[in-house]
């Protein structure tokens, strides 16, 4: 199996394609809807409102400490749905396979997806595979879509934040981006940072149980915490104040940021969320988060104000303040 590779014939739509799906994809995503192998999955829905999302995954390298492209694809899509307060109903996954991709790697990615889907309690109900020539896709690209049901009465969005809201994060920030960066080996850094990649729908469910009226939920992926806070401040036309000393960042992540001159507020996370919670419910929500395995290190980092709408102000440990702007362009390592 080690030497078996994807070839262009696997993408031709004939028997080899069928065999690929039977041998590799079906066993990982086995569920009644997918087994039907129809052109579409049909899902009964009772909710008035559906959350609907799509995403593409092009991460390099495919495998990194704490996860891989497969786990990322499932968690990322589930999390997009969860940030709307939705219960995931089903995902789709389309695969663009590069000719030459080893079937062993493919198997590992699919197994990861199976594991993540199990954790999230969600099924992949439809999929597609295409094969492109060597060099046209770095091993593997995955595109997903996800659909979820939003419970009645839950209205969560970037424009829902209100002055007085308490802002909390579910855990330390930056682990994912730093884990991937170190796995790329570009800067010869050695350390033990693992991606935080995880499906957050269970955590969100626990939080909503404590307070159905949560105002905003975002997972700080590309662009990091700063960008998400800025987007909410602007969509809701409120001010955001963050206590720098309260933002949890692991020592190793800080160490890498120091070495590269990176700002940890812009790092991508794939298993963390930021919540804007009405003041009265904050304590209960925080408690609910801390009880959940993915929220054990949850903590309050700031609050929403009436002043300075659209701006994110950071209170620094020495008692001063400065602006926290959204990410502008790629962060390059710097020496100055």
């Amino acid at each position: 199996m080690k030497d078996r590779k994807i070839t262009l014939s696997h993408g031709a739509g004939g028997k080899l394609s069928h065999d690929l799906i039977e041998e590799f994809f079906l066993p990982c995503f086995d569920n009644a809807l997918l087994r039907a192998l129809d052109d579409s999955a049909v899902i009964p829905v009772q909710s008035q409102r559906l959350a609907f999302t799509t995403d593409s995954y092009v991460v390099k390298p495919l495998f990194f400490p704490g996860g891989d492209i497969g786990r990322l694809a499932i968690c990322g899509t589930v999390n997009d749905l969860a940030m709307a307060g939705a219960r995931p109903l089903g995902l789709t996954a389309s695969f663009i396979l590069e000719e030459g991709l080893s079937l062993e790697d493919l198997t590992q990615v699919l197994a990861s997806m199976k594991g993540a889907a199990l954790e999230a309690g969600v099924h992949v109900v439809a999929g597609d595979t295409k094969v492109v020539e060597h060099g046209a896709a770095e091993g593997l690209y995955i595109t997903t879509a996800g659909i979820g049901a939003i419970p009645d009465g839950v209205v969560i969005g970037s424009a829902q934040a209100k002055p007085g809201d308490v802002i909390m994060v579910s855990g330390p920030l930056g682990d994912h981006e730093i884990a991937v960066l170190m796995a790329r080996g570009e800067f010869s850094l050695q350390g033990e940072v693992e991606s935080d990649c995880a499906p957050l729908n269970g955590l969100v469910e626990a939080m909503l149980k404590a307070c159905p009226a949560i105002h905003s939920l975002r997972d700080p992926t590309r662009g990091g915490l700063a960008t998400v806070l800025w987007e909410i401040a602007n969509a809701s036309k409120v001010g955001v104040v963050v206590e720098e000393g309260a933002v949890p960042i692991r020592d190793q992540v800080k160490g890498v940021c120091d070495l590269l001159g990176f700002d940890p507020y812009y790092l991508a996370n794939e298993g963390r969320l930021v919540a804007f919670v009405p003041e009265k419910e904050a304590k209960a929500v925080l408690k609910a988060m801390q009880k959940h395995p993915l929220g054990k290190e949850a903590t309050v980092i700031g609050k929403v104000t009436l002043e300075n709408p659209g701006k994110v102000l950071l209170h620094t440990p020495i008692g001063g303040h400065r602006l926290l702007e959204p990410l502008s362009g790629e962060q390059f390592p710097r020496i100055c």
Partner: protein
Amino acid sequence: MCLGIPGKIVAITENQLAVVDFNGVRREVSLMLCPELEVGDYCLVHVGFAMQRLDPAEAQETMELLDQFLEASGESS
């Protein structure tokens, strides 16, 4: 114009290279500019080179002196 990061030397390999620990993350650092450094020393690192020995005891002492001075200054004003 210079990011200088403090780190601790955890190993010295050949060719004047050392492994330096920065908060749990490690990278190879050249000792060409500071060959007298030893395992266990703290140093300031810039662009992959140790630039100078960093004395944590002295640093702590300086801080305490400042603290005391300000305390005295506050009392006398």
